[in-house]
């Protein structure tokens, strides 16, 4: 509860700071302070010391998984602010507002991670979505950004409508918005209302996490939005929706697994195929990352597919591995002028430290052992094998992982093996230091994933 409260309040604080603090650059400092406050609040959440400890008549549930997940999210947010805070301020005239919107999104993420009632899920998803529409269009003079925002808004509203309809159907099937009541009604003798409800909610959540065939908005929005917000959308927002997705299916629909698993497996296969194959043909690294985020969503969907212990640990690791790597890559990318693969030529000579960190990040995204990405993929795939009888899907997924090596390694090849001048980018020593910390975290999780997963069982 602390996290939800603090993030909402800090959003308001940020907005008012914009009125009273004249210095533009202070925005980043206030935001970092907010992220630290969130982290501390979350720590107290974990130990059970909350400002308001009510669960609002069962609307929220403070389970360990959701809280630990929020820890990962807040740490990612902190790193995001530290690495990209300057770029957030450089987007436009209203730096404080941008940070405020980000804090509101985190509030939504908190609701989505801890919901125990479909209304809270719906409110959480909406709190996440609406600020995102604004952030996408934050660079007002950029036509592409405006187009992307409008597209995103229209399609997003449509999917919200579908979700609401799904919730209505589930209510029709069970007579309640509570997840437990829905779980009780979703058994072998479930009525058609529940079935329709499950399908509609699946569609709308698949839209939010950009799973195929509901992914069409993703490349345009990610490409059109300011790079620094693309980074935020592709990482923190995406994994936040995934926790809601997983929690709903694990707690609500576990009784009828057999009915929806095939559908989810088809979504996974399509997502992996479209994301990976299309990414191969991209010429811009930013667009490639947009498609790669679709592909990575396919792997994260495995946790929704398997909904067992392994899947939960897997999603946790995946969230950490994927967010860390993607935030770091985007942080460097947003400082560059040329977004093409050739723009990275000779980068290793110019910036050896940053090139090394980027290489580690791309290794992690590709799932090479000794990086966090390997164990993230390992856990979700193992979860799927454990769930049984869908081995073809796992084999298909690993072949797609091999395809992903193709486009991730193109950047490494450009940085290390191709001749070029290397773009001039200006970075502070502190930036480099944080990047190195990110690389160390990725490698540490790649050697000992239990550093993170053990928190789930501690206490």
């Amino acid at each position: 509860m602390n996290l939800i409260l603090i993030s909402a309040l800090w959003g308001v604080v940020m907005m008012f700071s914009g009125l009273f603090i004249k210095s533009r650059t202070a925005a980043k400092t206030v935001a970092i302070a907010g992220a630290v406050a969130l982290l501390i609040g979350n720590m107290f959440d974990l130990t059970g010391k909350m400002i308001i400890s009510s669960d609002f008549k069962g609307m929220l549930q403070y389970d360990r998984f959701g809280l630990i997940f929020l820890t990962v999210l807040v740490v990612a947010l902190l790193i995001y602010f530290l690495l990209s805070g300057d770029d957030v301020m450089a987007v436009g005239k209203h730096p404080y507002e941008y940070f405020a919107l980000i804090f509101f999104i985190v509030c939504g993420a908190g609701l989505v991670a801890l919901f125990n009632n479909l209304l809270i899920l719906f409110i959480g998803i909406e709190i996440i979505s609406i600020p995102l529409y604004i952030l996408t269009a934050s660079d007002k003079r950029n036509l592409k950004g405006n187009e992307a925002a409008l597209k995103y808004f229209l399609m997003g509203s449509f999917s919200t409508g579908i979700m609401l309809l799904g919730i209505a159907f589930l209510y029709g099937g069970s007579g309640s918005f509570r997840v437990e009541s829905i779980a009780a009604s979703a058994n072998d003798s479930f009525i058609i209302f529940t079935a329709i409800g499950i399908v509609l909610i699946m569609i709308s959540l698949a839209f939010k996490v950009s799973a195929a065939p509901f992914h069409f908005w993703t490349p345009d929005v990610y490409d059109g939005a300011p790079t620094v917000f693309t980074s935020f959308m592709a990482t923190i927002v995406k994994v936040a929706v995934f926790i809601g997705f997983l929690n709903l299916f694990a707690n609500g629909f576990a009784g009828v697994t057999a009915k929806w698993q095939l559908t989810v497996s088809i979504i996974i296969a399509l997502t992996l195929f479209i994301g990976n194959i299309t990414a191969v043909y991209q010429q811009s690294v930013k667009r490639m990352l947009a498609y790669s985020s679709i592909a990575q969503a396919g792997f994260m969907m495995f946790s929704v597919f398997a909904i067992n212990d392994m899947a939960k640990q897997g999603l946790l690791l995946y969230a950490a591995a994927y967010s860390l790597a993607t935030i770091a890559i985007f942080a460097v990318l947003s400082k560059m002028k040329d977004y093409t693969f050739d723009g990275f030529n000779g980068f290793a000579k110019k910036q050896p430290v940053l090139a090394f960190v980027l290489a580690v990040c791309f290794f992690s995204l590709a799932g090479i052992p000794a990086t966090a990405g390997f164990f993230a993929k390992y856990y979700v795939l193992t979860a799927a094998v454990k769930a049984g009888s869908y081995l073809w899907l796992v084999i298909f997924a690993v072949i797609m992982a091999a395809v992903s090596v193709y486009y991730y390694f193109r950047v490494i090849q450009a940085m290390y093996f191709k001749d070029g001048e290397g773009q001039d980018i200006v970075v502070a020593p502190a930036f480099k230091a944080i990047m190195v910390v990110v690389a160390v975290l990725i490698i540490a999780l790649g050697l000992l994933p239990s550093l993170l997963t053990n928190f789930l069982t501690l206490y």
Partner: protein
Amino acid sequence: MTALLLILIPLIGGLGAFFIKEEKQVKSWSLIVSLAALAVMVYVLLSGSPENKIYSADWLPQLGSSFSLVMDGMSAVLCLLTVVAYPIIFITTWSSKYTSSNSFYGLMLLTMAGLLGVFLAADGLLFYFFWELALIPVYFLCSKWGGERRIAVTFKFFIYTFIGSLLMLVGLIWLYYQTTDASFSMQSLYAVKLSTAQQAWLFWLFFIAFAIKMPVFPFHTWQPDTYEQAPTAVTMVLSALMVKMGLFAVVRWLIPMFPAGSYEFSNIVIGLSVAGMIYASILAMQQDDLKRLIAYSSIAHIGLMSASLFTLNESALQGAMIQFFSHGINVLGMWVVVELIERQFGTRKISELGGIAQKAQGLSILLVIVALANVALPLTNAFVGEFLMFNGLFKFNIWFAAIGGLSIILSAVYTLRMIQKVFYGNTNELTAKAVDISWFEKAGLIVIVAFIFVLGVFPKPVFAMVNDTVTMILGIFK
């Protein structure tokens, strides 16, 4: 603990090498590190105490995986080969120049750590870990310091092997859930009871990964290009050591885990291997580039070894394991010669060379011995292994032995032709100015030649070493 040292020394040494800026110093450092690993290995073998050959520590208990190393006879042979090969590689390529040499030598040592890890790992997940990790430094080595087409060629090699190993990973995870004690340890994986149908598809998931690495026909297409484009020092690592990973894994993991599958598909695998032997030998005869010639000849030799492993009889298994070592030494010798020739004349084309023997006698004598070992002449180390392997193949199926035997003749054809064209005949303007090799390069080659003769007449120590592995494999089929 001593077993762990074998991995730690090159790992730490490799990481350290990145920070040494001076080229001479980094070369000496790498040599010292590799010699230190050699010393540890010799100590392990001489001490004979079994405690030195195993190590176990907690790694990921919740995943059922532990950091456990076991050195049985076959891994001892391959570890020994690795720690012997590395100093020879460093000595013979001492005069080669590499840009940013600290990264080059650092990556070379990291590869060594990965290789030793693969040969020692006694835990399925750990094995996979090292299997992949050995590949990453090689990817950088080939892509950065290789020939003109290096980036595309290395990439093909990487993706090829990566797909193979991921398929293996799926098989491994599936197998893990069949173990009774939810563990990746070697014993638990061996003990899984599987139906013949399950063994059949699991066999292929694993075998393709290993076959790509070896490589067995028709998975070999990455190999000649990669060998040609990689810097020769790396080619030595690839062909003397890295291909053994595939053969090693067949004996250590594939056959014990899926005995019925291995038995069922032995005809197909041996058929592919024998076909590859003939195919590669014919191609080797037509190559003008020395590196490609040796690359194809290597496919032929590997084919014989993989065929022998699947005959599953004593003679062939013993022969194959001795040949692991002998082939490593011999092919290393061949690459050393290529490196020395290329460095001196700037070309590897057979058609542009000739008459080197008139000027560089030391080099020529040593090369002829290595080349004769490559065709498995009696008294050389390769003869022992090949004789046993053909003996075993003959017992398995006379036709396979007969067709495979053709490759011996073909190998004599292309090897002798190469010697004749490169070393004898008249000099041209390129080779007229040839000078003999330096003393330390000679010393490196003499070590190789010594191994060739000693193991050629006295192979018993290696027999004794691999005995336990052979007994273990045969025990499964009793």
